[in-house]
Structures are given as C-alpha cells and as structure tokens.
C-alpha cells in the first residue's frame, strides 16, 4: 500500500484537520467528526446534512458551504457515521426551520441516520426529514431487498436541495425537491482497479491486467459483471445505455451529464469518457443542458469512472445554476 498518510487509523481525523485548515469558511467538530459551515446555524434556512463513510472525498465534506450542505458527518473509511454524529450535526445546523438528512442507500447509513433522527427528535425536538438516494442502476431495484445504492446523484441532490433551502423554502419543499432529483437521476459506475482501504493495506478486490468491473459500487462492491478491458467508447455504452433504459430517458429530454472519476483516474481520461457520453446521448436525441466532469464521489484510489444523468426541468436547472460556495463546487459567488 502506497499512500500519503501517517497511521492508517488516523487518516480520517487528520484529513479533517487538513480540511479545517484549508477552508476558513468551514469548521470541524473533531470529537463528533462533523464538518459544518462556520456561519451555522443559518437562521430561517432549512439545514442540510449528509454524511457517510470516508474515502469518497470530496463527498460529503467538500460540499459543505453556502448553497449546498450545512454539515457533513464523516465516518471511518467506508463505514457509516454513527447516530450521535448525526445528532450533533443536526443540532449544529438547525436554524429553526428543520433539518434535512440526505442519506445514501446502504443499510448501515440508513439505520444510523434513522437512529440519529430519532435521537434528534427525542433530545432537541428538531424537525427532521430524510431523503434516501438510490440511483445505481447496476443493482436490481426491488421492494424486498436493501434496494439500489446511492451514488453520483447524491452530489446533485446536495447541490439542488441546497439551493432550494437557500431560497428559504420549507423543510417539506426542500425534501420534495431532493426526492425529485433522486427520482430523476440514474447512475452506473465501473472500475479499472480496486482501491485500498488504509486499515486493510491491500486492494479490496483483484482485477486482472485486462479486466474491468462493470457496475461497481463506491466501496468496491462487485458489479453486474467482470469483463475484458475495452475502449472508452464501449465502456461508455455499457454505462450509459442501462441508465437511459432505466429511467427511461427519452429523445428530447434535457439532462445534466456528470462524468465522475473514482479517485485514481486523471481528468484527461474523464474528458475522453465525456466525449463518448456526449456522442451516445446525441445518438438518442438527448440534449445536454449542463455538465460536470471531475472526481466528486470517489472510492479512495480506485481507477475508474461513473456516469450520472439527471433529467432536468426549469426548476432543477434554475436551482443547479444558483450560487454555491463549497470547496469542491463553486460558482456565482
């Protein structure tokens, strides 16, 4: 394992120190591992918190700031934060209009956030609403299972719901927008190589020099299938076509196209992939109204990418374009 770290067990705590030192607009509650807006709570605004295992940076801490999250709870690497963290974050950001919990759909995250919300209700009476993201089309959807994983759409939910909250909308409205984004977005990812969890010291899974995993999860969960390494053009099709089929996206739709790097893949390759995604969408008559290219929801040093498409309407477009000021996404201010 080759990493820029000290002791594996200290990675999360030290990264939080680094985030705090680098971004004066953010503060960190170190005992609770909560990154929050320095101006929290923002009175008269619904608070937005999210969180999850570490190792997906900039998700979630890099999305804390004006127009997006009010706080993010950092778990151990690939391990959900615990309910007391969500309680602390909820109390920190409650500006009197309630708090929205944005949760990626993994059993651990869902259960821990649920208990966090219960604690918050019991202890402080803060009104909490929860939105669970589950956009990963690699997993078969079903009422009787844990369901689909939450992946790339989470970034878009945080941005768009954050903008709605900034407008002063009520908790129920912000939650409704967040749900709408989740329902209008789909994702699929792939891996060229496995990431390495610092405490494990070895790659989570093994892929041959000519193998890729299609439908990978952001914790290295196995995907739909293992295949031979192929061209960006073909990989693009393997990711985009199932996404289009699933929602389904239709000719004439306008989308936000998000090509995401998994952590170990450089930008030049993401642009090559974006070119393929744009080509495939054009072939379907789907227009790209907005785009996002970069490593925004990662899996440590895994090489690979994911594609997320979000169907846009005027409301979502306006909220996407609204000002945002976070370490990882910033515009309009």
């Amino acid at each position: 394992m080759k990493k820029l770290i000290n002791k594996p067990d200290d990675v999360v705590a030290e990264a939080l120190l680094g985030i705090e030192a680098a971004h004066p607009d953010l503060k960190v509650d170190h005992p609770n591992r909560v990154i929050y807006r320095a101006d929290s709570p923002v009175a008269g605004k619904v608070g937005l918190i999210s969180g999850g295992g570490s190792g997906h940076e900039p998700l979630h801490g890099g999305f804390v700031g004006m127009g997006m999250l009010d706080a993010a709870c950092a778990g151990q690497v690939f391990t959900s934060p615990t309910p007391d963290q969500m309680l602390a974050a909820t109390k920190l950001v409650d500006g009197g209009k309630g708090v929205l919990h944005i949760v990626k759909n993994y059993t651990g995250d869902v259960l821990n956030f649920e208990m966090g919300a219960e604690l918050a209700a019991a202890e402080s009476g803060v009104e909490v609403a929860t939105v669970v993201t589950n956009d990963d089309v690699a997993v078969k959807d079903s009422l009787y299972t844990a369901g689909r994983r939450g992946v790339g759409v989470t970034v878009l939910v945080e941005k768009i719901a954050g903008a709605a909250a900034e407008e002063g909308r009520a908790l129920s409205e912000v939650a409704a927008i967040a749900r709408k984004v989740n329902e209008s977005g789909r994702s699929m990812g792939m891996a060229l190589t496995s990431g390495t969890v610092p405490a494990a010291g070895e790659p989570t899974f093994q892929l041959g020099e000519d193998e890729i995993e299609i439908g990978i999860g952001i914790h290295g969960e196995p995907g739909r299938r293992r295949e031979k390494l192929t061209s960006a053009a073909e990989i693009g099709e393997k990711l985009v076509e199932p996404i289009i089929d699933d929602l389904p996206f239709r000719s004439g739709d306008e989308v936000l196209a998000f090509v995401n790097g998994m952590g170990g893949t450089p930008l030049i390759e993401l642009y090559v992939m974006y070119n393929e995604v744009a080509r495939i969408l054009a072939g379907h008559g789907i227009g790209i109204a907005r785009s996002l290219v970069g490593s925004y929801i990662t899996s440590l040093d895994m090489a690979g990418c994911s594609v997320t498409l979000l169907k846009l309407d005027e409301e979502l477009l306006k909220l996407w374009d609204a000002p945002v000021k976070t370490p990882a996404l910033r515009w309009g201010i």
Partner: protein
Amino acid sequence: MSLDRLQEWIIRFALEIEEHKDHLTRLDSAIGDADHGINMDRGMKAVLAKIEAEPPASVEALFKAAGMTLVSSVGGASGPLYGTFFLRFGMAGGETESLSADHLAKAFRSGLDGVVARGKAEAGDKTMFDALAPALEALEAGLDQGVGLAEALKAAAIAAAAGRDATIPMLARKGRASYLVERSVGHQDPGATSAALLIQVAAATLT
C-alpha cells in the same frame, strides 16, 4: 440469573468476537465489505471499556450501556441492529438485579422485535435474524416444556448454529449482500455468524 452472570455473558461475547474477528471479516469480504469482524470488535471493545469504567447497577443499565456503546461506535449496519437488540433487551429487563428465565426470554423477544423493527428482515433474508429467530423459538419452546434455562439455552445455541448454517444456500435480500443477488448464494452470513456466537456464549455462561 444474576446481573453478574449477565455481565459475564457480555464480556465473554466480546472475547469471542475478538477471537473470531478475522473469520467474521473474511465472511463479510465474500458478500459484503470485509468489516463485520472489525466493526463488532471495535464495538464490543468499547462496550468492555464502558462497563469497566461505569459498572452498571441494573439489568437495564448493563444492556443499555452495551446497546448505546455499540450504536455510537460501530457505524455499520450491525451497530444499530445489535445496538437496538441490547437496548430493547435492557428496557424489557428493567431496573432489576436479576432476571428469571421467563423474563430473560421476554427480553430476548423484545430485542429481536427491535432488530426487525429497524432492519425489516424476514426469515430467509440471510441476516442475523436467521440465527436469532430460531434461537429464540427454541428457548421459548424449551421453557414452555419446562426443561429449565440451561437446557433451553443449549437448544437455543444449537438452533442458532443451525440457523447460521442455513444462511449458506440463501439468496440475500437485505444488507450489502443483496447487491450480489445470485452470487450471494453459497456463502455464510457474517451477521448470522456473530449472532450464533452470542447465543452460544449465553448457553455457556447463563447457567
């Protein structure tokens, strides 16, 4: 059953988890994310530290301490699930210094209900439920038949082990393993494995 014996149960469960840590993690690496042993060991070590620092004075205090500590130290699915199990167990146990056999079974039932309320698992979903539920049934049946707590717990341990083994051919419908669909078949569920340890230790300790 004295508070001391119940505390011994928790302590020995922690030791068993430590001993089986790598095994549990290996099971989780096949169909999950390779951390169940790490999660449980982190949690149970925290529980040991907690009850050593503040020795609990009642059944409720003991199991609440265990439950709260698991919830606030694990983070995985198993944290809220085991945490809820112990919290509910403690609440049903009450502010007392000992438990009758029936009261113990009731507390167990209450804990398992908590697991189901939280995780929505059903029989055959390939989770800890598949070890805990048959164990509780065996315990209740034994007590109903008047075989005595020791015998009933022994039957429960055997049922838990059988339930654990029965997860092998199951197709997972809950937790991370569910992402694998067919590929989850043929692997033993890690949570059912740790749950079987819990009952096994109970049979060995609560006599």
